[in-house]
């Protein structure tokens, strides 16, 4: 690990001011410290955000939806009963994310911005394309964990379990920097690395996520989440599926279907959503949606198994909304 300075501001404005070039924001540190130890991040200054008031915790004001502070530890979202009643998919998606220790340290904002787990990317000695090299080693290398959909130069997959669940509820994020504030849809935060964009998201330098918001109307949806792993715990998703819909008199509206672990970004499948709109989520409709979700899939040498796996998880997740 390189030598660095450390500062723990008390206010957001101080924090934003300190986040100049060469500085990294530190929250739970569950990803950043690993990146630093592996020589993949070399910040000169760590701005520890955990002393900042007001970014931790969640609230739900009547009719105004849900607001989750970016510094809220994942375990709080998982354990809060009231939150579980309002949005059960949070607990469902977090239950198998990492370990309890990591969920206790890790924060919502950090989870949204965690870097991919590709073993070539994480290997300091490998100059992969995403790190400025000339090629993606996984394309012709060891790619059992890699993307089957939506990849360009880099075939790493979006690792978060929480993010597909939030996108299925049309979550928005509030962003702040020393230049001002803005909001965007969470889904728009992510980009599949390509061309000159050798990065996984569009956060600007010096910018922080301050809050995640879910609207009241989205909270009326029913949601479900499923994840396949290489063992029964502490494993990033081989495939994860988040689905949500408003079910009225047996008919589905506002259908959302988002996959994790299959593409460089959380993979929302609008075509499948449209096909399910107005359906009763019967077996045939769910099976068709599962096929649509995998349309255009281009498996690599070792990850073809993700197709049948994803197809079945999509079908099951969708069916679980009505049975």
């Amino acid at each position, binding site marked *: 690990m390189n030598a660095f300075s450390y500062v723990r501001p008390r206010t957001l404005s101080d924090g934003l001011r300190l986040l100049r070039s060469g500085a990294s924001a530190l929250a739970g540190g569950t990803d950043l410290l690993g990146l630093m130890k592996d020589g993949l991040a070399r910040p000169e200054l760590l701005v520890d955000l955990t002393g900042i008031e007001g970014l931790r915790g969640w609230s739900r004001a009547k009719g105004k939806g849900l607001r989750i502070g970016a510094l809220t530890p994942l375990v709080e979202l998982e354990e809060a009963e009231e939150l579980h009643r309002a949005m059960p998919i949070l607990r469902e998606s977090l239950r198998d994310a990492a370990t309890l220790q990591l969920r206790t340290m890790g924060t919502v904002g950090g989870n949204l911005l965690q870097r991919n787990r590709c073993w070539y990317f994480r290997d300091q000695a490998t100059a992969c394309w995403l790190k400025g090299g000339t090629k993606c080693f996984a394309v012709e290398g060891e790619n059992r964990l890699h993307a089957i959909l939506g990849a360009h130069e880099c075939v790493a997959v979006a690792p978060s379990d929480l993010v597909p669940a939030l996108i299925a509820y049309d979550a928005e994020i509030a962003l702040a920097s020393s230049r001002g504030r803005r909001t965007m849809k969470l889904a728009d935060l992510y980009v599949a690395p390509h061309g000159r964009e050798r990065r996984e998201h569009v956060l600007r330098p010096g910018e922080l996520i301050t809050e995640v918001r879910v609207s009241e109307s989205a909270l009326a949806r029913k949601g479900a989440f499923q994840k396949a792993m290489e*063992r029964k715990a502490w494993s990033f998703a081989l495939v994860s599926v988040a689905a949500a819909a408003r079910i009225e008199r047996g008919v589905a509206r506002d259908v959302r279907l988002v996959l994790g672990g299959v593409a460089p970004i959380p993979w929302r499948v609008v075509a499948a959503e449209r096909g399910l709109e107005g359906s009763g989520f019967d077996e045939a409709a769910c099976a068709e949606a599962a096929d649509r979700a995998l349309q255009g899939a281009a498996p690599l040498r070792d990850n073809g198994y993700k197709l*049948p796996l994803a197809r079945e998880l999509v079908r099951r997740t969708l069916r679980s909304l009505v049975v």
Partner: protein
Amino acid sequence: MTRILKSIEEFEGEVSESLVIVDGHDLPPARHDGGSPEIGRSRRRIDATQRVTGRARYTQDLYLAGMLHARILRSPHARARVRRIDTKRAEALPGVRGVLHRFNTPKTPFRGDDVIFREEVRFVGEEVCAVAADDEDTAREALALIEVDYERLPHVVDLEEALGDVAPQLESDGNVSESGSHKRGDTKRALKEADVAVDVTYRTSTQLHNALETHGAVALYDGEMLTVWESTQHVFGVRTGLKNALKLPYSRIRVICDYMGGGFGAKNGVGKYTIVASLFAMRFGKAVRCVLTRDEENLAAGNRSATLQQLRLGAKGGRITAIEHTSWSNSGQGKWIANPTGPTNTLYEVANVNTRSYKVVTNAGSLSAFRAPGYVEGAFALESAIDELAEAAGVDPLTLRRRHAGAGKDPITGNRYSDKHLLECYRIGAKEIGWDRRRAGGTRGSAPHRRRGIGMASQIWGGGGGPPAYATVHVDPDGSVVLTAGTQDIGTGTRTVLAQICADELGVELDDVRVQIGDSAGPFGPMSAGSMTLASVGPAVRLAAHDAREQLLGAAAGVLETPKAELRLEAGAIVSKGARTPLGEVLGKVDNNTVIGKGIRFPNADDLAQKTFSAQFAEVEVDVRTGEIFVERIVAALDVGRIVNPLTAASQVEGGVIQGIGFALSEERIVDRALGRVMSGNLEGYKVPTVKDVPTIVVKFVDRPDRRANNLGAKGLGEPPIIPTAAAIANAVANATGARVRHSPLTRARVLEALALAGIRD
């Protein structure tokens, strides 16, 4: 009278003969009437408090005053010639004390090479330089400043690629060499005459040990003695390795392993890190610490070889008539291989057997022994194939095995087994799992798309141990006891069971015995490997305790003025006609005298084969749409002779089963073929089982003393429980689904592919 005797021992599947100096006579077999105060009793580990309170000192915990830190620069290339090394920038870094590499390091013989830094480095992770610095960060920083000029050479890392024609040939006689064969009967004819035959290919992936504590050593040189603390399974083996490398006499080397965080076979001898730490220690006259990181551990500290195995089996009239088994093992840069055909050669009484085992060299890290090396890989293939044959022949797989598992003789040497209760293991295990519930084709599972199945597999392994092994028992005047033995506790509970044996034979309380092991300053003992610790050292401890007791009773007879024959030593007191005098009180009369009992391990009978046997039964569910396997229950029924401590014994079995589950389902070293790099070299990528992956494990022991094996009647238990687990699970999966997965671990990809092939998934 001192004399020389011959002994036959088995280590890791290899039988060898040795000569032993003995004196006096061995004890008759220990009684087994349930009346032993300690043997056969469950006892908490005597060092449990030290361990759980963090007071137990492991090698990695050792920070000595003024200690230097050594780190190793490793080859980034799978194969290259080291042409030039420039250390100027590294040596200019403040805090750097020195750099070792091939151009400045004296000849230091190491495992068949005469240097530790080779001119041609042959795998990613091979040692190129070592740096000693005042602190760890400086040492690491210095590594990045060393400039090495490599001439890259063509390489091959994959087993099957190395077997092919286009692969670079790494040795003058090619990449492949035969390492063993066995032939009895005529398999060709038997296969021709068989009613049914199966011809199947199995693969097992490379498994990494990933002991909690990585490899490492701390060396200290005071101008006279080299003292090395090392996380090792054999303090004497490290001593020998250092003697050969550094040309010091044994008397000037002391190796200590007080506590260690696991080894699983990868810590059986000296490491390059030991030699590096020692060379620096001797050069600077300071303590030097060299401990591997997890990444280094998974590159260069050993593994269980990947294998490719072909089996042809024939059956006639409901009996197995022929087995042909050819195996290729990826030894990496190792100089040997473990033998996957071992179980095929010896487990079943089959008339026609023909096996061959080949070593394949590649540009990958060397194999090292890994908990039943060869037999885990071999049992996966053999025991899967037996089930495939049973299915083809329409015979229940357990019934088929029963027909061949009763033999009383080792089929290779013709020697009788000292004891064998494999059929009893089958009976116990089948009853416990409910084998009669098993249905061909499996049964319905607990959720939609889930199938349920039961499978089993059996095991043969050594575990008889043997000489030389020594112990002494010192009884101090206060009646407290120090047991010194040539061994180390690698996490199995050795300290505890040796204390039990000593207390039992001597007639003192367990708490009165302090155990002094893990120190080459004491008497010699074997490596804690090959399931031989207890069966080797235990009988010596019993003899030493017996010797001490006889002396104590003699002393007590004199002090109490009572005939020795009327005295007993029980629970730390001399008992005479109902009167109890505490040992300390008796010895108080002869204060400052020390009673020293001495024990050795007598030879094994040279006309017997000491083996361990067991069977495991697995019950699983399989989701046939997602390929997910749920192991619900493992029943292990074992014949390992007498059980000294049922608690630590069960813990050994559970550990073996869990590691077997890892081998079966999730543990896999993944190497990029072009780069030669291990991609899954950390605990994220390399998936050892978590608590949630562990099923109910039922442990049953036959628990009959093997009276012909040694005076304790106990055999080894470290390795038997990992051998049959993967095959039992694969057989249960096949029973549940009809799909046969022939490659361990049974990952999603492999299970889904097998299900698709069997036409089951949709």
